[in-house]
């Protein structure tokens, strides 16, 4: 097959897609989210319509707490926008799969219709190339829609809200990946039945079955993972449930894992964005991505001895500020309350609840007079099983007077990941958390991609084999 034939087939696929009424309707629908984000801007000072009408000025704080400073509001805005975009794209992901399948399932049956097939298959082009061109046409269909959807959302957010998030572009390959396996099935059904209606119906029936089986597999896999990590004796299972678990495992290996598209995109994004963290402690499940702004870590300091220490001189000269994180073994659960109580008594200040990573603790803030010097002190207390984590911030008055002192503290502690020990992590893990490039086979992203690609190849090969045996 020469380049002219490939060009001709691709151009034919393009013509077929853009002429499709379903495509044009979906194109308009998929422009709507972009249009929405273009007309409605989300800012720290409220939600604005067409940049003119201000709605919900306190939408970020919901009017319940004292508005935080600008930096914190911006952080909050980013989180809220991520949520909004995730929800919008989640709806469109499902919508795109179902409607795109309905819109493209006729590509192969139409090619095989009496009269049409005679013309096309009498040309000096292999049946395989013609079959593949229809498959590619379906992928082009979804790719164009995905580009319109995501391009619109990214541009809309950027232009109206000033929030530029190019990582959203990963959703495009994720959507196409998710669709690729369903479309391979739909093409196979198209060849087997030579009926558009049958191909659509069978594919639409296959989608929830496949989804259900994978969800059941994921639930089983996570339960098994938790049981293994908790050293709990395996619960007695019936023969039927053991057989069902094996069936799920086998199906997971051979079936299309189109639902993993978003997970793979996330894992890929994380891998590409990966920066070596400043500090990791596996026992506590503690990850500190970066030093606090302007601080240097004391190279010899250790978490379980005198404490991990960061120091910084004040930029304008003068005294130092210190961050120190220390882990101590404690003998019983509830040590946090006892220590908090004692500290409250000693300092005469109330503590506030706080969350570090995923674990709830207490936060104290007070001023300490050291000779002539007044110092700002903050302390966070968190207990992870039999270890008490104490985070101390000790700064001279010049530091405390800085406008961004609070923001820096929040930015530093807010960016930690504290997930607890391996058992706790296992108990609270979801399939999404466990899904990784180097995970065991049930959660392995590479295996997911390879087996899904293999499935697509197998479906296409079966379709081609059937097509090669058809007498028109």
């Amino acid at each position, binding site marked *: 097959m020469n380049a002219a*034939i490939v060009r001709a087939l691709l151009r034919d696929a393009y013509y077929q897609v853009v002429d499709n009424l379903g495509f044009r309707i979906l194109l308009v629908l998929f422009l709507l989210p972009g249009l929405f984000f273009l007309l409605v801007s989300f800012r720290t000072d409220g939600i604005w319509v067409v940049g003119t009408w201000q709605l919900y000025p306190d939408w970020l704080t919901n009017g319940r707490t004292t508005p935080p400073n600008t930096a914190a509001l911006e952080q909050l805005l980013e989180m809220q926008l991520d949520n909004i975009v995730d929800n919008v794209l989640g709806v469109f992901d499902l919508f795109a799969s179902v409607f795109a399948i309905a819109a493209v399932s006729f590509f192969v049956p139409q090619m095989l219709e009496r009269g*049409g097939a005679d013309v096309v298959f*009498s*040309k000096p082009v292999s049946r395989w190339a013609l079959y593949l061109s229809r498959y590619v046409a379906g992928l082009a269909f979804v790719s164009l829609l995905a580009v319109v959807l995501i391009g619109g959302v990214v541009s809309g957010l950027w232009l109206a809200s000033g929030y530029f998030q190019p990582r959203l572009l990963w959703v495009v390959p994720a959507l196409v990946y998710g669709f690729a396996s369903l479309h391979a099935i739909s093409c196979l059904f198209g060849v087997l039945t030579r009926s558009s209606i049958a191909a659509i119906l069978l594919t639409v029936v296959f989608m929830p079955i496949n989804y259900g089986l994978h969800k059941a597999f994921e639930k089983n896999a996570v339960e098994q993972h938790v049981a293994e990590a908790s050293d709990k004796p395996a619960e007695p299972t019936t023969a039927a449930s053991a057989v069902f678990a094996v069936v799920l495992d086998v199906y997971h290996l051979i079936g299309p894992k189109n639902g993993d598209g978003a997970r793979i995109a996330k894992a890929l994004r994380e891998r590409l964005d990966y920066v070596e963290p400043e500090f990791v402690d596996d026992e506590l499940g503690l990850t500190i991505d970066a030093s606090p702004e302007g601080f240097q870590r004391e190279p010899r300091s250790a978490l379980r001895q005198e404490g991990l220490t960061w120091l910084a001189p004040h930029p304008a000269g003068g005294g130092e500020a210190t961050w120190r994180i220390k882990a101590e073994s404690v003998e019983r659960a509830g040590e946090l309350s006892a220590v908090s109580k004692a500290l409250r008594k000693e300092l005469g200040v109330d503590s506030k609840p706080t969350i570090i990573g995923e674990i709830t603790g207490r936060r104290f803030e007070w001023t300490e007079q050291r000779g002539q010097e007044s110092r700002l002190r903050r302390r966070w207390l968190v207990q992870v099983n039999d270890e008490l984590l104490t985070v101390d911030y000790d700064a001279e008055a010049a530091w405390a007077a800085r406008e961004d002192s609070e923001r820096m503290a929040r930015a530093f502690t807010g960016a930690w990941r504290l997930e607890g020990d391996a058992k706790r992590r296992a108990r609270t893990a979801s399939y999404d958390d466990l899904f990784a490039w180097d995970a065991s086979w049930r959660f392995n992203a590479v295996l997911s991609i390879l087996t899904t690609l293999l499935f697509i190849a197998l479906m296409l090969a079966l379709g081609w084999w059937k097509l090669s045996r058809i007498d*028109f």
Partner: protein
Amino acid sequence: MDRSTPAVSVRGLSKVYGRGLFGGGGFRAVDELTLEVGRGQVFGLLGPNGAGKTTLVKMLLGLARPTSGEARLLGAPVGDALVRRKVGYLPEGHRFPPYLTGVQMLRLFGEMCGCERDKLERRVPEVLELVGMRDAAKRKLREFSKGMTQRMGLAQALIHEPELIILDEPTDGVDPVGRAAVRQIVQSLKERGVTVFINSHLLQEVELICDRVVVMVKGKLVREGAIEELTPRNGRYRFELASVPPNLRVLLGDLGAGFEAHERGFEVQLSDAELDQCVDLLRAAGVSIRGILARRLNLEQAFIQLVKAQQQGGAK
């Protein structure tokens, strides 16, 4: 171009549909067919419905797999993609991609047949002109009438300048002017040395444009030859006279059968001996004979006779 190899060569070709698991039973659509079509011929494939004509054509184009036997086009096996670049095909009951315009379809099929862009720049307007579709070529195919679609079908079969063209009911749905145009196109292809293989029910069309025909009945070849060979004399003679004597019928007496007078003479059924006798009688009466035409069966009559005979033979 190797002119010595036949354009179409079929040896013992069979196609059985719906065979059982172990190869038994089934419907034999083409049965041990052998035929050859020389280069540059206009060849007609005739037969009643269900004779296996379309199955034969589909096997020639790789659309159906033969059960046994061998078929070659332009000297190469029918499955050869390269040889199919030299073949144009207009199927019966075709359906072209409705989302394409006429020009887009010609470009698509031209490129699928390996035509380069430059060649298509030249060929697309040429064939559109040839089939009389230049004005409508930028419209979508779904907007075309049946006759227009048929013309576009002919255009796509010709776009890549094939050496062999297979036309299945080429004048189906085409108006009389269009039919004449199709005949003219076939004639011009013949003059250029292109082999044309026509499968048609319109026997008058076939009779007008084909050099040779084969007749298939129940998957078998029952007759093959030039049009003259398939349309034998029927014993009737048409006499053209300088002037028609008023007592012509009396003059001939009871010679021959089925006498019919016409403006310039008469037509009558005669044996060879009676023909001589008739000429003698006319000459003896001083009638000047301008011409004698031995009448033949037309192709339709010959075809019907042949098919009936075959079917009766089969029934016995």
